[in-house]
């Protein structure tokens, strides 16, 4: 069902100003490679889970058949405008929403002319050049109040929908690794990871990716959130979704196609291909829920997740 998975960064520099820095150019080259891979795989659809599209009322799923707009990033507006035309697999989007509801999630489609697709999804789909390949996408929001269960269940709902429609897909998460930006204006040529600690964590994460240990990494999400992420949202969720939709195991061939800094963030282009052999499949700590049974309204202890979650609605840079 899922032919391949990708982790892609969402800041606009590799799209708009690749030549401003060798870092951005490397990422751009990696995006080009992903584009060719996807074009030869010829999936029916690209599923995109974007950490840069926050939602409150459950998950939102982009379903407008043709999304056409000129996008400008709210932070890096001076780098230029991004006109786009993307095609959504509207039927699959609707089925994903329906399957999510069956599994207890609150989910709905978004089909509005002029809807502002988030910078991360726009950058990823532009660089994959779906405008030319005409491969449709379905974009999923990141629910700011969701934690692991809802995110894993959302992944399963996506699979249900793919199975029912007998479609093949490439799964993309739009996310940075460490997400701390420099907070003063920098010379792009001198872009570097915000801190040594972020750098060390990024390298750890990449080591897991290279060994294909997707589920192991997904199970480390809470720690990654504590160690390498600004606490703008309640948790680091994209790998929960990716692992759920691709299969919660370590049977992957992982490739890090690029790892660079974009304004201080850890921005990596990673591919994961399902493989016969598992790098390592031990017992996982966290279970694999099938349905979401609703909020239990239990306040988490450390890190006060519920509190951090609320702020994220303004923080739509992942």
């Amino acid at each position, binding site marked *: 069902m899922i032919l391949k998975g990708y982790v892609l960064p969402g800041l606009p520099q590799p799209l708009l100003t690749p030549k401003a820095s060798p870092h951005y150019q490397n990422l751009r080259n990696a995006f080009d490679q992903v584009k060719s891979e996807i074009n030869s795989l010829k999936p029916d659809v690209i599923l995109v889970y974007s950490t840069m599209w926050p939602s409150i009322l459950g998950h939102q799923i982009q379903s407008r058949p043709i999304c056409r707009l000129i996008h*400008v990033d*709210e932070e890096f*507006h001076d780098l230029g405008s991004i006109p786009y035309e993307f095609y959504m697999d509207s039927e699959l989007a609707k089925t994903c929403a329906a399957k999510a509801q069956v599994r207890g999630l609150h989910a709905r489609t978004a089909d509005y002319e002029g809807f502002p697709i988030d910078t991360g999804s726009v950058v990823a789909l532009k660089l994959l050049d779906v405008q030319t390949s005409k491969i449709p996408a379905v974009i999923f929001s990141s629910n700011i109040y969701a934690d692991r269960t809802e995110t894993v269940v959302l992944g399963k709902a996506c699979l249900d929908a793919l199975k029912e429609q007998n479609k093949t897909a490439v799964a993309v998460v739009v996310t940075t690794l460490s997400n701390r930006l420099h907070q003063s204006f920098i010379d792009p040529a001198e872009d570097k990871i915000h801190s040594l600690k972020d750098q060390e964590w990024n390298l750890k994460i990449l080591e897991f990716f290279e060994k294909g240990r997707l589920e192991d990494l997904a199970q480390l999400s809470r720690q990654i959130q504590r160690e390498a992420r600004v606490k*703008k949202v309640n948790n680091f969720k994209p790998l929960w979704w990716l692992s759920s939709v691709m299969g919660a195991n370590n049977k992957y061939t992982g490739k890090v196609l690029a790892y660079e800094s974009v304004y201080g963030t850890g921005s990596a282009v990673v591919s994961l291909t399902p493989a016969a052999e598992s790098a390592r499949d031990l017992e996982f700590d966290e279970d694999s829920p099938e349905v979401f049974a609703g909020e239990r309204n239990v306040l988490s202890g450390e890190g*006060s997740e519920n*509190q951090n979650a609320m*702020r994220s609605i*303004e*923080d*739509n840079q992942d």
Partner: protein
Amino acid sequence: MTSSSSGQIVAGCLAPHPPHLIYAENPPQNKPRSEGGWETLRWGYEVMQKNLDALNYDVLVVMTPHWRTYVGTHLLGLPHFKGISIDPVFPHLFQYNYDLKVDVELSTAISDQIGQAGLPTKLMKNPDFRVDYGTIISCHLVNPLWNKPIVAISTHASAAYFSPDVMQEEALKLGMATRKAILGSGKRAVLLASNSLSHRHFTHEPPLPEDMSFEHITNHSQYLWDMKMIGLMKDGKSKEMVSLIPDFTEQAISETDSGALTWLMSAMDFPKIPAKVHAYGTVIGTGNAVVEWSGI
């Protein structure tokens, strides 16, 4: 608030921006139609709007939580913006055609003052830029005719990046810079802090979003915090209120994390007169107050 030089901050307002309030009003600019709702807040805004109109102001200066910039404070830097704004969170409620004018001279002056205070700042000069819905909603609710130019100022994520105390320090400086620029501008400005108070949403909405039988505060502790802050506003204790903002931000999950309310109080040099609280109400569980400081 007043100044010996020609510029003046004639009023400052807490002007929250739930898109529900626009949806409920059915203005021609907004596509979705409703049967009303959230009257307490909307009627509070109506009173405040009349008060502000009587002040014969030149420009609205709004600080918005929904234009988040991480690298410096950004301000709209072109004279005119037109387009459609769809709230990516509540798209079914807010699809608004805006057409607004910017006081670029004042934007530039504020940006210059921010720079002189040693903080990074940038003017936004991309004509394709989509103005954020916080700016649009707060400005619409105090001036639905859109017959005055605006200045829109972005907010940071310092509360998340560092702590609410760091946010507070930055916002205080931004307030002082804004004040300086306005006093030197010769203009009569109204300032808007576009934020809710407690900010814990419900994650579900009723089939009819404006069904008011579902609307109430998410939990009582949020309510108590909101009342504490509003009480201090009513008592004219703005300095004490500001000193509580870091705790309030953390414990009530408040949208004051944007720094907008701190900025407002700093720009007004901490008014000692009682604030006029025109309304308090909840929107999808969050606490919102419409508050005016004027006549100083």
